[in-house]
């Protein structure tokens, strides 16, 4: 295995959970909802995926369960923000803390247990080609899913009627309601989709990236995903670029640390954040384009008059 090959494989592994979670949050925010609870949904998804994979011996069932758990833990957030029209920032923070705590509680018995790893795809012939095989054809299903979902979210948002309605709801909920679109239903579905994607991201961590359970194993990735969405100006392809840039600089930093160039480790840990912010700010300089892509209703509760 060459150095470049190993580097690319680790970058893909580091970027996939960010991409999955950020794509989910992108859809949520496009519908005009700010869900700060990504970290909590991710952690819940991770522990449930780990537990189900261990209990059933099937990592795929684990992934499925993790996705559902991410959505399930978002239900109180749906109730608070869509039924009671509560403050979304407070509700989202509560979800983040609740999900982390819940995952720690459920996972207490699993600490230190060896997990079940999601098997990598093996396509006879293709996967055996040197370099190209492992880099392009040797991943598990979640990596391919993350790319597929990038295209699917872009297609959904900009090519389908449902996507148009979702964007309309996020742009002007009063007008969308006046036209007869179900604002709160659209938002509820978007939040649940965000939960599924965060749950998948968590599942990737606990059944693929490092098949084990450690408390706080999400390690702030949910917050990074949130930031990626904003800096990517709510566009799916930019989220993909941002996630991979972040992953690449992160891995480079680890390599630099190992090689011992004498750079302070704190600086190297900060580097991916700085690089991603700098790059995404640079590509977001066109203010008109940014403004037309910013969901104007973000964070604002909606209550129809009846």
């Amino acid at each position, binding site marked *: 295995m060459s150095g470049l090959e190993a580097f690319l494989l680790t970058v893909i592994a580091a970027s996939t959970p960010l991409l999955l979670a950020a794509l989910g949050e992108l859809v949520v925010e496009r519908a005009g909802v700010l869900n700060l609870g990504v970290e909590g949904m991710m952690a819940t998804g991770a522990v449930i995926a780990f537990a189900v994979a261990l209990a059933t011996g099937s990592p795929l069932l684990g992934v499925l369960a993790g996705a559902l758990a991410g959505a399930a833990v978002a239900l109180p957030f749906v109730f608070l923000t869509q039924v009671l029209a509560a403050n979304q920032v407070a509700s989202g923070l509560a979800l983040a803390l609740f999900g982390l705590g819940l995952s720690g509680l459920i996972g207490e018995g699993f600490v230190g247990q060896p997990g079940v790893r999601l098997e990598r795809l093996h396509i006879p012939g293709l996967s055996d080609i040197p370099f190209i095989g492992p880099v392009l054809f040797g991943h598990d299903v979640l990596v391919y899913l993350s790319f597929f979902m990038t295209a699917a979210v872009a297609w959904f948002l900009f090519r*389908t*009627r449902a996507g148009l309605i979702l964007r*309309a709801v996020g742009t002007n909920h009063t007008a969308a309601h*006046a*036209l007869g679109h179900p604002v709160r239903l659209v938002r509820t579905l978007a939040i649940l989709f965000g939960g599924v994607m965060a749950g998948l991201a968590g599942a990737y961590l606990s059944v693929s990236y490092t098949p084990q359970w450690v408390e706080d194993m999400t390690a702030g990735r949910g917050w990074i995903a949130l930031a990626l969405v904003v800096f990517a100006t709510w566009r799916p392809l930019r989220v993909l670029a941002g996630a991979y840039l972040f992953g690449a600089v992160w891995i480079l930093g680890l390599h630099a640390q190992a090689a011992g160039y004498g750079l302070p480790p704190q600086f190297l840990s900060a580097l991916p954040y700085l690089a991603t912010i700098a790059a995404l700010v640079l590509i977001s300089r066109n203010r008109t384009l940014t403004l037309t892509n910013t969901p104007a209703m973000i964070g604002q509760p909606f209550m129809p008059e009846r």
Partner: protein
Amino acid sequence: MADKPAQTGADETTAAPLLEVRHITRRFGRTLANNDISLTLEAGEIHGLLGENGAGKSTLVKIIYGVLRPDDGEILLRGKPVRFSSPAEAREAGIGMVFQHFSLFEPLTVAENIALALSGAHDMEALKERIRAISEEYGLPLDPDALVADLSVGERQRVEIVRCLLANPDIIILDEPTSVLTPQEARNLFETLYKLVREGRGILYITHRLEEVRELCRRATILRHGEVVAEIAPAAHSARDIARLMVGTEVHHVSAPPPAETGVPALHVRDLTLPAPGPFGVALYEVSLDVRAGEVVAIAGVAGNGQRELFAALSGERPAQNPGAVFIMGHDVSLKGINERRALGAAFVPEERLGHACVGSMTLVENLLLTRHAVDSDFVRHHFIDYDVAQKVTSRVIAEYDVRNAEPGRRAAALSGGNLQKFIMGRELDRRPQVLVVNQPTWGVDAGAAALIRQELIDLAREGAGVLVISQDLDEIFEVADRIAVISRGELSEAKPADSVSREELGLLMAGAHERRNGSGAQKRQKG
């Protein structure tokens, strides 16, 4: 008017009317927004629905369109009772609506906006074709691929109308459609409406503009305080009579004595050029203007042509970029902030009452202090606010400017729009400023209060102040102004004496006839 159709309607007693509203009642908390309202709309008729702000017009049409549910009463379409639980059901039954506050989505294209209002397959290419066909048929030119954010107000209204027509409705509800149009644009709209009723559709036309009702409608229903006060044939009544029915009392007649002969320039603007504040803002280009002591100068224009930006530059919210552009009472204030300008005797009333002119969650006393603390030393004693004085002044403003339902300790947001506007005007007029700049002085204010505010503006000028009024309402402008200028895409025309300009001339200027940068006014609004 080439082909105004003979409107049919009430003569066809045999057929059930297109739309019949019976005894509709709707409460919001303790207020009766609609109390036992009945009206009929016949096929081929433009029916006027008249009333002041808060008379219940919007509530009624929201009920007809399925946005709100009535507490009581029923709606019949061609004699059959219907109940809509959503606007989608109303649209399916053949009711279309063009909203007053545009319900458009700025970051989306024209075609996307229209697709949102239609049900059925999502085929954008086919939809674009239909949009082109309809807009050609009814004389409403539109580019389906344009972003709504880039469209002028008149074009946005076309989007709304085309969107409504694509569903082929039998009944069309128009809510204050001409309030944002130039006179020429309004004329074109009327032609479209006549064509629509000739096709046998019925139009419910909501407005507070009496002359329009007299021209367009054979019948009109007048609402006041949520009740029907009369159904009239508007052409048979004078505008003054109709106004009296709407308001319930005689409306104050604004009188403007001729201005004093000479005056020094109280406000002087010379070649003010400012780039647009943001992607959806308007740049100002070489704006020059004089407002002399003793006169009222008005700036007409369609919304979104730089009024907001000009106001901000005059008030100092966004100072000019170089000295020598804005002078107040002979002092160069181009780079100075709002309080320094106030200290020279100027006062400013911005367009939005809540959020700009005052803070809704603060009391009236606090709101009074917000604009006056820095320029009236009475309010500050030993570096602390003297609330006794502030309270007294607030009470004086409330009493003198007839602000109803108000106490100094009440939150500003608790006042109705008209009363709050009277308070905000009163707060500034109470200082007897030497320069007053006001943007949309009577927007959303009922006719009675509007007349009083306009009279105050004239009286202040005649006492020797220079008054600048920015307004979209031509009736208001002709009522108060001694000289009139027009703003279009950030360029200001030369101010001309009010008695020497016609509405048609103003309409041409509003469409950009005076612009130097863009050539003819036929071009599109400059993009941010």
